């Protein structure tokens, strides 16, 4: 008897021809029952082992040229974010200026990947960024809780897109997920993906609310099966936000999904990433778990606000040998 779980093992083992893979995945997403079986058939994640692996990778020592490369790469992966009730056009404008040219004194500093704002401020960001390569990302779907009707969520997405968003960061319905309604989660991501059209869709799992690594793995696969371009750890509004072991589990998921389908899904780590050391640890993790293909902004993002200045300070330290001061870079 061939169950969805069995199919996954075959899919994940990479032993299937591409056409078969497509058919197998279509079957997996064909019904709530099939999806549930498929997700239940995923190999479990041993928490202790995952924590230890992440901790071991965190001891990698990145020095000299490797560090310089990592800092610039990390800057180019930053989604410079402001998601506060107190956000104003002025704040967003300032952030956009910083995003395009993080260090006005040093044009060799690359721009960040994107600015990330609420939908009503997308227009401000769009016009502030002008022809800059920096993308505009917008959270949507009743961020951060996701507690609204499907219609409201889709309207939220359309608002963001109409205002000029290049990327949409949606949240999954964690309530539905935890209640075991995986099909509902899948459908909702599919619906948002359809609404996005060419815009990139990042799917926020809010791993702090999913609680277990098994759930993180299942949610990752659900999002990828539904067409996510990125899977993203957190809204930044729930503790714990992004952690290295959760990152490890998600990077394994995109790696396995790529092996099975040939499609590379990106990963965005967001929340709690404040220091250069943190950022480099995520780069090491991506490098050694998913592989070096993921070391570019198309497939790896760091959602953060204060991180950028720390990267700039470390960058200057690398160049001048002296530690930078806390007021050396602009605070938005």
């Amino acid at each position, binding site marked *: 008897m061939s169950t969805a779980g069995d199919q996954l093992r075959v899919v994940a083992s990479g032993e299937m021809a591409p056409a078969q893979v497509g058919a197998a995945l279509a079957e997996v997403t064909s019904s709530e029952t099939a999806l549930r079986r498929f997700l239940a058939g995923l190999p479990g994640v041993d928490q202790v082992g995952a924590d230890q692996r992440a901790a071991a990778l965190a001891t990698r020592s990145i020095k000299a*040229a490797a560090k310089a490369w990592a800092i610039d790469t990390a800057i180019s992966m930053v989604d410079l974010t402001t998601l506060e009730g107190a956000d104003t056009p002025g704040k967003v404008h300032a952030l956009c200026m910083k995003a395009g040219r993080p260090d006005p004194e040093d044009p060799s500093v690359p721009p960040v990947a994107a600015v990330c704002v609420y939908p009503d401020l997308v227009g401000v960001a769009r016009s502030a960024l002008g022809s800059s390569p920096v993308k505009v990302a917008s959270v949507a779907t009743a961020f951060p809780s996701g507690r609204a009707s499907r219609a409201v969520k889709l309207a939220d997405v359309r608002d963001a897109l109409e205002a000029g968003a290049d990327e949409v960061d949606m949240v999954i319905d964690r309530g539905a997920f935890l209640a075991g309604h995986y099909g509902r989660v899948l459908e909702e991501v599919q619906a948002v993906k359809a609404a996005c059209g060419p815009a990139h869709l990042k799917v926020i799992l809010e791993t702090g609310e999913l609680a277990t690594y098994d759930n993180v793995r299942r949610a990752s696969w659900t999002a990828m099966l539904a067409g996510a371009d990125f899977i993203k750890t957190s809204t930044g509004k729930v503790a714990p936000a992004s952690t290295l072991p959760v990152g490890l589990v998600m990077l394994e998921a995109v790696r396995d999904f790529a092996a099975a389908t040939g499609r590379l899904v990106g990963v965005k780590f967001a929340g709690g990433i404040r220091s250069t050391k943190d950022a480099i640890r995520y780069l090491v993790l991506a490098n050694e778990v998913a592989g070096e293909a993921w070391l570019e902004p198309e497939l790896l993002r760091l959602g953060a606000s204060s991180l950028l200045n720390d990267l700039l300070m470390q960058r200057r330290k690398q160049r001048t040998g002296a530690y930078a001061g806390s007021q050396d870079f602009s605070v938005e």
Partner: protein
Amino acid sequence: MARFEYAPAPESRAVVSLRSSYGLFIDGAFVEPVDGGSFNTISPATEEVLAEVALAGAGDVERAVAAARRAQREVWAPMPGAERGKYLFRVARIIQERARELAVLESLDNGKPIRESRDVDVPLAAAHFFYYAGWADKLDYAGFGPAPRPLGVAGQIIPWNFPLLMAAWKLAPALATGSTCVLKPAETTPLSALLLAEIFQQAELPPGVVNILTGDGATGAALVARRDLDKVAFTGSTEVGKAIQRELAGTRTRLSLELGGKAANIVFEDAPLSQAIEGIVNGIFFNQGHVCCAGSRLLVQESVAEGVLDALKERLGTLRLGDPLDKNTDIGAINSGRQLDKIVELAASGEREGAERWSPSCAIPERGYWFPPTIFTGVAPSQRIAREEIFGPVLSVLTFRTPDEAVQKANNTTYGLSAGVWTEKGSRILWMADRLRAGVVWANTFNRFDPTSPFGGYRESGFGREGGRHGLEEYLDA
């Protein structure tokens, strides 16, 4: 070239001040050997001579045993347990304080990655002293009857794979009971034991309580040949262990042996696969496979064998082999030319006997002793690489279909030190653990060590336990 090329990140050698030559540590002082012999110890990663070390002969053994006997009778055994314990706490604390120095020295002399000496060997050594320190005044509660007495003087011979840690495993429980020690470190790795001797001096441990005799096999033989030891504790090869057991036949000397192994690491289809891959890697490539309890036989359920092997090979591609002092090194140097020859010979036998050999592409340094991580697939249980201990980074892969078959294959060895079981099914873990003839069974993990946890083998892996409450019994007259 890789996108993200990690720059060299070597740990500084400056923290270690090597002397050009070292004497023997007898009766609290460093002394010249009676016959004046010496040998060099080298760094296996570079073949550079690190220091000249005294070679103890029979006369030195006699002096050391006499010092240990006197210290045991006059000082150490009469001392209240709480006071003995405080010496051991001091030693534990100084090991913690001088941790980096010990780690660098260990990696220099042994060839193991600094990541391991820093994160495993040295902290565990300190933890062993800390744990047994606490037993010194609680022996009445250890379960071996009321008022157990110390055994006396122990001769202890340790291997080169975890030089400092094995010294701690031997010394800490003996000292806690009120016994005293003559410790003989391995020929290729004497330096961390000598630094430990300095630590004993710094801790003001009474003279003679621990004596350290560097030397070769003949030194160890001279120690075992004495008839005035109360105890011999040996960790090393099964061959030498058997010779020691024969040597002590007919004497009243107590013996514990921690010998070789050929552990099965058993992966079921319902295992947490990502963690199992890590466990396989850690099981056989930790410390270059120079681990008696290494998971050198991978038994993988046929239904997932192909996927596991693919994932394993991919993972091996990310291992970093090279300078042991580089903080990013995963695989260091083989400890000696002699050991390298043995690994090379056994690996060649695997190919000759028809197993399929695979290694990731990795650059091997020009100087020093190195062997790449190696996997043999299509291994038959009859082949030498499935039966003999290789003691190197070489994994033999076999398959099984049912739990019964896994048990049968796992137990089909003359050894019985350890085993690993990977499955998310708890009841199966315990079922397997019941049937595996091995002194340690790791479930969904591998190569974990803790001072509270007894360690030791079944069958030709030896007898006696080190660690935990059980470890005390080896040094108690109860």
